[in-house]
């Protein structure tokens, strides 16, 4: 009987070669939808900065954040290649479980009405108030505050996008398709944002977070299992089963939370 470590080594060598369409499609969809949510959030803040101050600090802050993100990606890429695939799958799987289940939990509580819905218009209003009154806007020092605000928003949301792309793509050499999915989401938000010049409040972020939370959690279970040496029945198709299971669990959880909140209200 082969030892566990040898089983892992054999499996990872095979896994690196195999790229099935089912997992690629899921990875691209998860990266696209998750990035859509993150980019909409960053766009709202950048738009608030641009509207209240000017496009200059917004553009400088955004460009600086994108440059920082590009540096992080360039530094991470060779590092990822050094890590054995099984260890990478295990680490990423656990992180994805933590991240995805956090999203799913929050989305379930939103659906149940236990916590208030994420609202881009409200965030835009809060950011507008924070950036000051019209009289204050002319002060030069506040241009820096505006630039830093844009930088912080793009950097924080961008880091989440980078993590999601690595998490859904690195386990099977799908970084490029997952990255393209994320870039497509960025392009879509930028095009729509450039046309309407308003916060993208009609994007169903809460529903998207529910679905994406289930998808990321299913990737988390899948990668963690593979990292532990489990061979899932149905191979990559098990991901679809996990996603359906997490969706169902989220719906049941939100229904229970709604009932409990009504009882205690």
């Amino acid at each position, binding site marked *: *009987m082969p030892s*566990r470590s040898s*089983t892992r080594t054999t499996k990872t060598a095979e896994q690196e070669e195999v790229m099935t369409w089912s997992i690629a499609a899921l990875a691209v969809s998860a990266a696209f939808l998750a990035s859509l949510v993150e980019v909409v959030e960053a766009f709202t803040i950048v738009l608030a900065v641009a509207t209240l101050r000017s496009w200059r600090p917004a553009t400088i802050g955004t460009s600086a954040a994108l440059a920082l993100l590009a540096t992080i990606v360039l530094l991470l890429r060779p590092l990822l290649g050094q890590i054995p695939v099984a260890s990478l799958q295990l680490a990423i799987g*656990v*992180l994805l*479980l*933590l*991240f995805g*289940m*956090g999203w799913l*939990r929050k989305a379930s509580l939103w659906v149940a009405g236990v916590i208030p819905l994420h609202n881009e218009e409200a965030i835009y209003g809060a950011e507008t108030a924070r950036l000051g009154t019209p009289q204050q806007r002319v002060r030069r020092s506040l241009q820096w505050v505006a630039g*830093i605000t844009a*930088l*912080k928003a793009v*950097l*924080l949301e961008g*880091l*989440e996008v980078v*993590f999601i792309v690595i998490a859904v793509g690195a386990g099977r050499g799908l970084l490029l398709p997952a990255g393209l999915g994320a870039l497509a989401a960025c392009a879509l938000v930028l095009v729509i944002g450039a046309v309407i010049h308003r916060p993208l409040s009609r994007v169903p972020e809460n529903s998207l977070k529910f679905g994406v939370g289930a998808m990321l*959690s299913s990737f*988390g*279970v899948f990668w*963690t*299992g593979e990292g*532990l*040496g*489990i*061979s*899932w*029945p149905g191979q990559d198709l098990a991901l679809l089963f*996990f996603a359906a*299971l*997490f969706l169902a*669990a989220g719906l049941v959880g939100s229904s229970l939370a709604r009932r409990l909140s009504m009882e205690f209200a």
Partner: protein
Amino acid sequence: MALLKELAAELVGMFAGEKRLTLAVLAVVAAADCWIDFTSLNDSFSAGQCYFLVACCC
């Protein structure tokens, strides 16, 4: 400096924002690893897999 602190807090919050959830997930993964090692059933759909999957959904 404040930006770096905020960045670090955000990164930690991404994975460990909800302490109970974080501890539960880590406990389930650790238990699944022990179970798989104990039963040595790496190549088939074992009780460990069922346990891992069900526990994650719970």
